């Protein structure tokens, strides 16, 4: 069917593979729930739907091995949900592996490569065995021999009426190819019904006006015919299959047993009951031949997207959310526009700052409302880009399962807050660090069952993965109840690597943070679990790249907790505008701890260190911004200017000396290097209300620059 396509299917294929990836991930997650025994019947249905959707699309693109495997898998799942097969740990295991093999087939189809002929054959055989003697789908080229062969051949005559909805062509389905495929099953005669054809001048090239009646004499059974139409049947076309000489009604229960759910129903059958039995939502069909139903013409991607949105919700709260697929570019454009709006709003606010409520009550009120709406609009637009961290967390159960087996450890994964949402870019950036941290927890944190028993802990370790929103950021925690950080070893290693001077006194927290230092790895030998060359410093860097920070808390013998804190979005942030000489800079609000004007007693100048502030018994390095940036005309005396205490990602505090604070403001982040190049100490730029550019300070980089500037003095 695919060899002689006259048009390009690649676009639909891309969408299909995208969906497959989502469906596979969803199936995996749901299967994991079933495996733990916390799943419900609805979960089984969800897995079934996933596999079914993958199969449906695969059929349309003629990925025959994929269709074949998916069909067997699906049949097994159907037996499970109908209770013919009991759920057991063996079955659950089989489902996990079945899903893996399905993924292999999908990826092979995507890469257009062939898998070994017996790939997944054992799983296939086991899945088929679950379903007992049920005949397996008739694939044209069965990929494996494990499936029971089709039943002995008896030629039957089918009458098939194929009536596409006017919109079928728009969904990328070509009737010619389906008819050709149908013809390949046996001897066929086709009569086209051209009654629906309009005058040539009124014809829309994207409409299908024809319908066909085919008489097919074939040795294949009904499923083979169903398969030809499975991607369109009931959805964008009406397909009526009748076996000559057999009562229509007799076919339906047989079909129902197959659990196919595609809605290839005889026209005279009791539609509602058949549909109700299926309970699947796929069997939309036209009540009468010849009536086009616009509702049926819903584009496939939307239907699938809605389906994917429904399925996870089905697990817990049965909220039905409709969703659409939108190009990310469009959203980015929207985000940019909102950015411009935020700037314009700030500009208006600044222009009106001279007016009072008394003199211009309506103007002031209007501006306040504008500011309110702008912020709301911005938050909502950002929410479009937001995705639940579930996408990120769903890989974890698998990782923990596989790794604990490999390492001979017992670990249980507890997740919470999976529905917490965060920007898509942040999610993408987090995937690797999170995987690494989980690996780390299992490899270095959790002890072997024997060690744990000896320490009086349960043999099974627990890894807790949690996400939550807190003060405009998202916090992700990876906590284990393992042995915690071995501070003595870490310190010894750091000294050995020259990261710390021998005899240097460090607090426990400082020692813990050493694991993030570049070039630090305590694993004595490189296992294939940890130490793949991705150290904790890379983890920290990845997180810092998206404006996040990571800290670790550890209790020896009781476990460690890694806390990642990330901004919810990368496009807009809250900043504090500060003045230094003639220049204005934006300090990210999240970095600011406090600001103060020190007294002469608080500010001291020390040899070697420069100026130091004493605040509530704590000594903080003072960094004059005008020195670091070489700005003229700034206030140089700390007691006359203002000191803003900022905290870097590493938790170190520095006092930045500025002239004054100009106010808090929401700023749109603009890249500096798109037209220029990165500048040290500056993370990005923004546009202020007056149209001028202000630079956003990179606090961590500044701290290092401050040290250099002092050294140069």
């Amino acid at each position, binding site marked *: 069917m695919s060899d002689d396509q006259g048009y390009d299917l690649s676009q639909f294929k891309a969408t299909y593979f995208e969906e497959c990836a989502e469906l596979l991930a969803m199936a995996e997650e749901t299967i994991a729930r079933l495996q733990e025994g916390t799943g419900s019947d609805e979960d089984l249905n969800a897995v079934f739907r996933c596999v079914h959707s993958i199969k449906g699309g695969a059929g349309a693109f003629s990925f025959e091995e994929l269709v074949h495997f998916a069909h067997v898998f699906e049949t097994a799942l159907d037996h499970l949900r109908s209770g013919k097969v009991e759920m057991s740990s063996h079955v659950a295991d089989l489902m996990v592996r079945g899903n893996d093999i399905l993924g292999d087939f999908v990826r092979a189809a995507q890469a257009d490569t062939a898998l070994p002929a017996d790939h997944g054959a054992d799983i296939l055989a086991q899945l088929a065995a679950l379903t007992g003697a049920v005949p397996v789908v008739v694939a044209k080229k069965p990929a494996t021999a494990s499936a029971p062969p089709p039943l002995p051949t008896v030629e039957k005559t089918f009458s098939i009426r194929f009536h596409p909805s006017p919109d079928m062509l728009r969904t990328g389905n070509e009737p010619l190819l389906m008819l050709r495929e149908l013809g390949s099953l046996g001897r066929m005669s086709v009569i086209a019904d051209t009654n629906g054809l309009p005058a040539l001048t009124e014809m829309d090239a994207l409409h299908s006006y024809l319908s066909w009646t085919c008489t097919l004499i074939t040795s294949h059974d009904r499923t083979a015919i169903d398969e030809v139409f499975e991607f369109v049947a009931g959805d964008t076309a009406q397909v009526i299959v009748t076996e000559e000489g057999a009562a229509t009604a007799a076919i339906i229960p047989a079909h129902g047993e197959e659990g196919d759910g595609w809605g290839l129903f005889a026209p005279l059958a009791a539609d509602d009951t058949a549909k109700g039995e299926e309970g699947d939502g796929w069997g939309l069909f036209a009540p009468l031949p010849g009536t086009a139903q616009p509702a049926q013409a819903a584009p496939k991607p939307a239907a699938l997207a809605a389906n994917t949105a429904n399925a996870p919700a089905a697990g817990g709260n049965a909220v039905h959310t409709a969703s659409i697929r939108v190009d990310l570019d469009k959203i980015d454009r929207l985000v940019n526009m909102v950015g411009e709006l935020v700037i314009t709003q700030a500009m208006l606010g600044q222009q009106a700052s001279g007016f009072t409520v008394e003199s211009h009550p309506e103007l002031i009120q209007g501006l306040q409302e504008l500011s309110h709406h702008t912020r709301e609009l911005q938050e909502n637009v950002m929410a479009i880009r937001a995705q639940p961290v579930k996408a990120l967390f769903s890989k974890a159960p698998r990782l923990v399962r596989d790794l604990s087996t490999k390492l001979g450890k017992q670990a249980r994964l507890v997740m919470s807050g999976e529905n917490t949402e965060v920007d898509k870019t942040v999610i993408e950036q987090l995937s690797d660090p999170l995987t690494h941290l989980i690996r780390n927890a299992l490899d270095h944190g959790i002890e072997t069952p024997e060690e744990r028993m000896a320490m009086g802990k349960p043999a099974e370790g627990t890894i807790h993965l949690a996400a939550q929103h807190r003060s405009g950021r998202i916090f992700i925690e990876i906590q284990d109840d393992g042995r915690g950080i071995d501070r003595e070893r870490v310190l010894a290693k750091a000294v050995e690597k020259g990261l710390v001077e021998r005899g240097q006194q460090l607090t426990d927290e400082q020692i813990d943070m050493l694991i993030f230092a570049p070039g630090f790895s305590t694993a004595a030998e490189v296992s294939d679990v940890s130490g793949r060359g991705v150290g904790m410093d890379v983890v920290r860097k990845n997180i810092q790249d998206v404006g996040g920070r990571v800290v670790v808390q550890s209790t020896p013998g009781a476990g460690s907790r890694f806390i990642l804190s990330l901004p919810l979005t990368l496009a807009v942030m809250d900043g504090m505008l500060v003045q230094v000489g003639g220049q204005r800079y934006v300090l990210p609000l999240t970095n600011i701890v406090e600001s103060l004007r020190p007294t002469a007693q608080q500010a001291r100048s020390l040899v070697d260190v420069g100026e130091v502030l004493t605040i509530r018994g704590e000594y903080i390095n003072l960094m004059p911004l005008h020195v670091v940036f070489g700005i003229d005309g700034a206030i140089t005396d700390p007691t006359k200017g203002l000191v803003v205490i900022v905290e870097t990602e590493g938790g170190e505090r520095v006092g930045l000396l500025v002239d004054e604070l100009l106010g808090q403001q929401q700023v749109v982040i603009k890249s500096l290097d798109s*037209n220029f*190049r990165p500048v040290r100490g500056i993370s990005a*730029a923004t*546009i202020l209300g007056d149209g001028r550019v202000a630079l956003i300070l990179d606090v961590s980089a500044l701290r290092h620059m401050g040290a250099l500037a002092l050294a140069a003095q």
Partner: protein
Amino acid sequence: MQNATPVSEIQAGGTRQFISFTIGEEEYGVDIMAIREIKGWTASTELPNTPEYMRGVINLRGAIVPIFDLRSRFSGGLTQASARHVIIVVSVHDRVIGILVDAVADIITVSAADIQPVPELDHHDHSGFLTGLVTVDGRMVALLDLHQLFDIELVADAITAAA
């Protein structure tokens, strides 16, 4: 963006258009195809720890555009920018940058045959940025190769930034 075309590659008989501008007494030409717009000087935001001729960045309808002071780049000292000074916004290497000049002079159309090669000078370091010289109404106009100029610029800056 045709301005990178070396003189030798210009077809005989073909003509090219340049925008000419002045810096002090000198007149320079830039290929008209590279020019995105010409605007009056607006105050820029200085970038810390960058060379003097890097005059900072401005907001060009939402984009952050760096401004280079050509006089300063050609060792003629810093331009005392005023409202009468002009920023020529050009597109080089997929980047949009602005060059600060004194004034725009003319649009000149020259045929390839009229472009004279730049005499080899002993120790003038910026002759590599010039693709040729033309004489228009008795004035000498030096044709600039922006690609060359800003390629070196960005690479050199990247090196200093990394160091």
